[in-house]
């Protein structure tokens, strides 16, 4: 049922006992994690093969996070489709693939389902203590256990494990990003691991078990380490600085790439279009205006400003009219307010007024929106030859119905003021209920 194509990628799982190798492997193979772990332990007794295999996988297999990050950089990989497979895949029979930790066949699910290990550290500790107890009992009975080599070896292994876990990718990210307290904890653990390893090596090498000799050796080795650190420190610092500057450069490069991508998608395309339509002045103006608007929104968008409010809707309507007629529609808005059904009507009426202004005015259209606690007002002004609202024929729905009638129905007013110097439509929508109305103007009055 589970074909190679549908296998989740081999990554180290976050459900970890030591480094998440076994559960990751179990996910990948579709086997119960219990058996994988058991197999790994058993293999360890076969001349340490299990240990070596585990260590190799630990080093070579990325964590889930790492892998996701890598794949996101190469979104579609035709060469290795299994690598870029999303984690949740639908099986051919239509059912959802069970979550990574459950067994493949539903009938055996209850048998094979393994809970995420909650007390991993405690279990490891317990196993360690049991081992110590077994060794002590063996000594009592009279079996000769080479404690002299066993204890230092255990110290080295334990220390290395503590230190290496720090360097594991996920922890390393935590070490750099998290708060100072966490960082301090990380350093303490690193130091403890280092101390354990050093002590273990010393005891093993000196081999005598004599305290005085060990003490001397410890002093000597600390002195040597100090000397080496002193020599290597400038190199290390330089290396660290290079790393930092390289990282900063990469961040800048990413930003530049994002800007370049945006410019390519919008500005360069528009410029190409403009070159091809150079003959038609109206098309060129329209393209340039649309591009300007788009670029402006991208450059100067106010992150603090909420979206979906009245001002944004009016601007969107203006952009639409601008595209349709090729005349500039400049919107100035003061204050803002939440959208309601009544405001929806205001936007529609304003849009109709803008359409009329662009169609008949023949020039730039000025739109002014003011929202305050008493209501919202929209003014749409053009510089056209003007018209007499009373002479508009009954059958022309534009002004009479879409603007005046619509505003009246929603408790607002529409006044049309036309002269030979231009026409101005004034739409006013008073606040219905002062208590309910949410004012966004932010002005203390």
């Amino acid at each position, binding site marked *: 049922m589970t074909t190679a194509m549908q296998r989740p990628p081999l990554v180290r799982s976050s459900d970890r006992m030591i480094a998440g190798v076994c559960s990751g492997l179990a996910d990948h193979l579709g086997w119960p994690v219990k058996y994988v772990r058991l197999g790994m332990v058993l293999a360890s007794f076969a001349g340490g093969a299990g240990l070596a295999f585990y260590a190799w996988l630990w080093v070579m297999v990325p964590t889930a996070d790492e892998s996701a990050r890598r794949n996101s950089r190469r979104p579609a990989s035709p060469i290795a489709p299994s690598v870029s497979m999303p984690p949740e895949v639908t099986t051919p029979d239509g059912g959802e693939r069970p979550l990574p930790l459950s067994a493949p066949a539903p009938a055996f699910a209850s048998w094979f389902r393994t809970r995420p290990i909650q007390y991993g550290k405690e279990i490891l500790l317990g196993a360690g203590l049991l081992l110590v107890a077994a060794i002590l009992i063996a000594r009592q009975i009279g079996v000769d256990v080479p404690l002299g080599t066993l204890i230092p070896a255990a110290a080295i292994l334990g220390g290395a494990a503590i230190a290496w876990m720090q360097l594991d990718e996920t922890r390393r990210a935590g070490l750099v990003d998290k708060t100072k307290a966490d960082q301090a904890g990380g350093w303490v653990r690193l130091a403890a691991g280092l101390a354990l390893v050093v002590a273990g090596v010393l005891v093993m090498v000196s081999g005598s078990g004599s305290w005085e000799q060990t003490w001397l050796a410890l002093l000597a080795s600390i002195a040597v380490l100090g000397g080496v650190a002193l020599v290597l420190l400038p190199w290390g610092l330089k290396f660290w600085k290079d790393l930092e500057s390289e990282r900063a450069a990469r961040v800048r490069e990413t930003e530049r790439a994002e800007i370049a991508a945006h410019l390519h998608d919008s500005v360069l395309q528009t410029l190409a279009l403009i070159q091809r339509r150079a003959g038609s002045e109206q098309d060129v103006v329209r393209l340039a205006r649309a591009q300007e608007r788009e670029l402006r929104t991208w450059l100067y968008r106010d992150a603090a400003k909420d979206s979906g409010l009245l001002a944004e809707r009016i601007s969107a309507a203006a952009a639409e009219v601008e595209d349709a007629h090729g005349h500039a529609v400049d919107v*100035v808005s003061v204050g803002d307010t939440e959208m309601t059904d009544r405001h929806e009507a205001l936007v529609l009426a304003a849009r109709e007024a803008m359409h009329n202004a662009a169609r008949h005015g023949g020039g730039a259209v*000025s739109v002014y929106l003011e929202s305050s606690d008493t209501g919202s007002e929209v003014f749409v002004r053009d510089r056209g030859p003007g018209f007499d609202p009373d002479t508009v024929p009954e059958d022309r729905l534009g002004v009479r119905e879409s603007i005046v009638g619509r505003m009246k129905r929603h408790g607002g007013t529409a006044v049309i003021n036309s002269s030979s110097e231009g026409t101005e439509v004034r739409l006013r929508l008073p606040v219905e209920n002062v208590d309910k109305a949410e004012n966004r103007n932010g002005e203390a009055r």
Partner: protein
Amino acid sequence: MMNALSEQVARKVRVVIVDDHAIFRSGLKADLDSRIDVVGEAGTVEQAIAVIAEVHPEVVLLDVHLPGGRGGGGREVISASSAFRPGTSFLALSVSDAAEDVVAVIRAGARGYVTKTISGPEISDAVIRVADGDAVFSPRLAGFVLDAFGTAPAEIADDELDRLSARELEVMRLIARGYSYKEVAKELFISIKTVETHVSAVLRKLQLSSRHELTKWAAERRLL
């Protein structure tokens, strides 16, 4: 107004254009009408300061974003020049209509702000107006003013600097609605001179007010 303008014809207004795009400078030069005499051009902050000191123009058409100097752009030119050239007025010119850019140059001492899409006759009128010591407000700048000062008129005398009077608010609203000074005057039944007085008063408030919206803007953008 017409009289004032015809007097200007005899005496050409000396103008320096500061913009880092040569193509825009030449286009603007061609757009300006016969009342205006372009006596210098500059493309960077340093050039601008040097040219202004050398030719003593009446009006500087100043791009908000300029290369060079300490990175302050148009603001830097104004603060460097106004010390030894009190007779020079600045009209800010920008493609940017971001509030911080506009308010920054106005607070640095520019007498007005227009966008680069403005037409030839309009910018010529704006230059003449600035040369006469008046302020030039685009609809968008009027919108910023209304946003920053609030749309309620001042009632108490002691926060005079932080609020606009009822009349000033009316004038600002009409400018924001796209009215020219002449149309504002007609609408409010006042003279153009009175409109100009109101606009200058608003400009002074915009430059001097410590109203928290303005200072917050400035502080956030490290303009203070």
